[in-house]
């Protein structure tokens, strides 16, 4: 069981963008809940595509609508009091408004989900093996015996020691990391083509998280499953995702490849997220730069850009458009952000004010950063530099206290 592997090819970078139609396509998804206090717009006009074999990371804070999006895709939301509109197609099949029978055929077979809290997601009443075997029997019509064999095989694949014996254990007899592995086995038992993982490692310890993330990546390379990975941790995103969608107040504020979002982000909210997390390699004597304020209530989201009350750069947009006009997500290819700042200005602000504080080397000096955006960003940044020298980053000193004044 103890193996020290010697020089070995590291996991290859994900395959470049494939051809053909997206496997999962979400268009203008809106989810609203009627509550006693009014209507909550949990998801407000979200669109994204996911190709086969790729991983899309959905990043956002609690209440940004990332989990609701996935429940709506799978049709797992409570139909009472919920209005869902838009289009969700999986491999050409429309999912929204599809009859329950058809969804039931797809769920567990073609698409499945891993939940955050494995203790509540697994039933305490049935053995782990039975819970894994059940969807397999239902979808493939296999015999009881065959399904049990399959459960043992799956448990072994996800790294449960002695699967022959552990298949008859109940969830409470497993440790947290093993339960999460069992849930992955349950989700993958029918070889689904779409896997939705909703914060699958948030409740786990960091060494176990690393095991589970690597396991998901390795299994994906073997099976070619598409994954939607919901998380709030940008480190996890950097580790597992190919593409990233940043959500704020039920909307997509920025989307692009993982390099785009983490190396040259364009939306002030993404800048804020990157600047506020402590990192192992960042200088320690520099204080973190938090985003002032707190996320808005979705009962009564701010008009215009939902981020504008917390944004340090709204003064840069003429005519206070941020407070009145909702910025559209402008896409060039698969890359875009919803912000009124124009493209050059955004790149200049990031290069002059945000990136230096991250303690990273500039893109051009980094040999590894030979991505297409590297030289491009630097070129456009230069003429802008003169303009930005004058204005001080005024928002930082009081950023620490911003949340208190409400």
């Amino acid at each position: 069981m103890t193996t020290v592997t010697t020089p070995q090819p590291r996991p290859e970078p994900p395959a470049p963008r494939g051809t053909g139609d997206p496997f999962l396509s979400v268009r203008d998804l809106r989810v609203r809940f009627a509550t006693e206090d009014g209507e909550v717009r949990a998801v407000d006009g979200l669109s994204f595509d996911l190709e086969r074999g790729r991983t899309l990371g959905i990043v956002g804070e609690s209440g940004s609508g990332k989990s609701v999006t996935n429940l709506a895709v799978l049709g797992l939301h409570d139909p009472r009091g919920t209005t869902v509109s838009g289009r969700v197609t999986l491999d050409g099949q429309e999912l929204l408004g599809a009859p329950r029978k058809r969804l039931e055929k797809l769920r567990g077979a073609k698409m499945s989900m891993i939940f955050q809290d494995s203790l509540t997601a697994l039933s305490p009443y049935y053995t782990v093996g039975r819970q894994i075997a059940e969807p397999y029997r239902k979808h493939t019509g296999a015999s009881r015996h065959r399904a049990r064999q399959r459960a043992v095989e799956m448990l072994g694949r996800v790294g449960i020691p002695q699967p022959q014996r552990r298949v008859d254990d109940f969830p409470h007899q497993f440790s947290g990391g093993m339960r999460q592995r069992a849930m992955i086995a349950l989700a993958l038992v029918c070889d689904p083509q779409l896997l939705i993982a909703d914060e699958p490692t948030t409740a786990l310890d960091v060494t176990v998280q690393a095991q589970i993330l690597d396991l998901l990546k390795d299994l994906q390379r073997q099976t070619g499953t598409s994954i939607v990975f919901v998380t709030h941790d940008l480190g996890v995103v950097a580790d597992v995702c190919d593409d990233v969608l940043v959500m704020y107040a039920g909307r997509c504020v920025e989307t692009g490849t993982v390099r785009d979002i983490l190396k040259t982000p364009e939306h002030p909210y993404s800048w804020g997220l990157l600047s506020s997390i402590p990192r192992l390699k960042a200088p320690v004597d520099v204080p973190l730069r938090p985003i002032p304020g707190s996320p808005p209530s979705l009962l009564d989201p701010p008009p215009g850009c939902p981020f504008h009350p917390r944004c340090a750069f709204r003064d840069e947009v003429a005519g206070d458009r941020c407070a009145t006009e909702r910025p559209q997500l402008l896409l060039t290819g698969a890359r875009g952000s919803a912000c009124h700042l124009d493209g050059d200005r955004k790149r200049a602000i990031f290069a002059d004010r945000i990136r230096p504080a991250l303690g990273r080397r500039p893109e051009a000096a980094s040999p590894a950063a030979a991505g297409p955006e590297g030289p491009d960003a630097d070129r456009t940044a230069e003429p802008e530099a003169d303009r930005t020298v004058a204005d001080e980053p005024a928002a930082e000193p009081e950023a620490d206290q911003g949340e208190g004044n409400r």
Partner: protein
Amino acid sequence: MSGIAMTKAAPAGEPLLEAAGLAKHFPVLDGFLFKRRVGAVQAVDGVDFTVHAGESLGLVGESGCGKSTTGRLVTRLLEPTAGRLTYRGQDITHATRKQLAPVRTEIQMIFQDPYASLNPRRTVGEIVSGPLEIQGLLTPGARERRTRELLEIVGLNPEHYNRFPHEFSGGQRQRVGVARALSLEPKLIVADEPVSALDVSIQAQVVNLLQRLQREMGIAFLFIAHDLAVVRHFSQRVAVMYLGRIIEIGDRDAIYEHPRHPYTHALLSAVPEADPDDDGRERIRLAGDVPSPLNPPSGCRFRTRCWKAQDKCATDEPPLVRLDGDAEGHLTACHFPQEPTVADRGHDVVLDPALAALEGTEPPREPA
């Protein structure tokens, strides 16, 4: 635990709090009518550390390693099973409530869950002035003035004095908890996962607030967290715990740049970094979870998950000592320490059977 003394000459500032061989075992009872002791959870089993005045000592480890129990022992919310706890030269290991009263004004605590740690039926003003009232300090008028001042210090609006906790967001509640901890002008604050329940963008606000307080007021911190990056940011010295023991302790640079214990290496290697170019680190993937503290492994407790373990590890418990070539105050408990670097040295350590199987057999993916 052998009583290896801490290096006294570590950082500036006199020792404020000293723990020597500190242990806490929780009995496990069984039986009908007559409860019988069938075992003990060895939550903390012999830890030695010193917190100096004005410094921040970080305590990291995975869940179940005993870091929260250590925090509760230090604040004497729990009574140690064994060992010695000294606060400014005074032995408080088994001190009574009465003896503790003056010490408790100087050691305060900030809790993890800002929802559970504030009484929902009391106003913020009552919560923050509570410690002053209990200690019988100041007149009611002066207490209110002081409370408003405290609210302002932590970045809340003093006019929120009469509001209730439910009217605040998580980050603001945590600020209320900080104001309460500050009300008695403590010399040491035990912060037990103070930011882990908060959203990413709010975490930094609270970390900065605590850092400002530490700098301006010279308060010492015992900063307990599982997030290694947060601890690195906040603490000058760091202790790594595993199954109730400190396995490595040293200043920030020693632990994060030149760690020696295999477990510290594994922890650092597992932290995901928000940088797609971050591939210069070694890759270590342990197998399984932390064993139960009910029946911890003999000898070195990490040996069951360690790739360097030999027979000696099962029989001899490694003492926490300074190894050859390590900095002053950098102590490691390991028989077969690692090289003091976290850089990738060309071979991965993959102990997880599923990962080893998946990575060992399948061919690298072809670019489509």
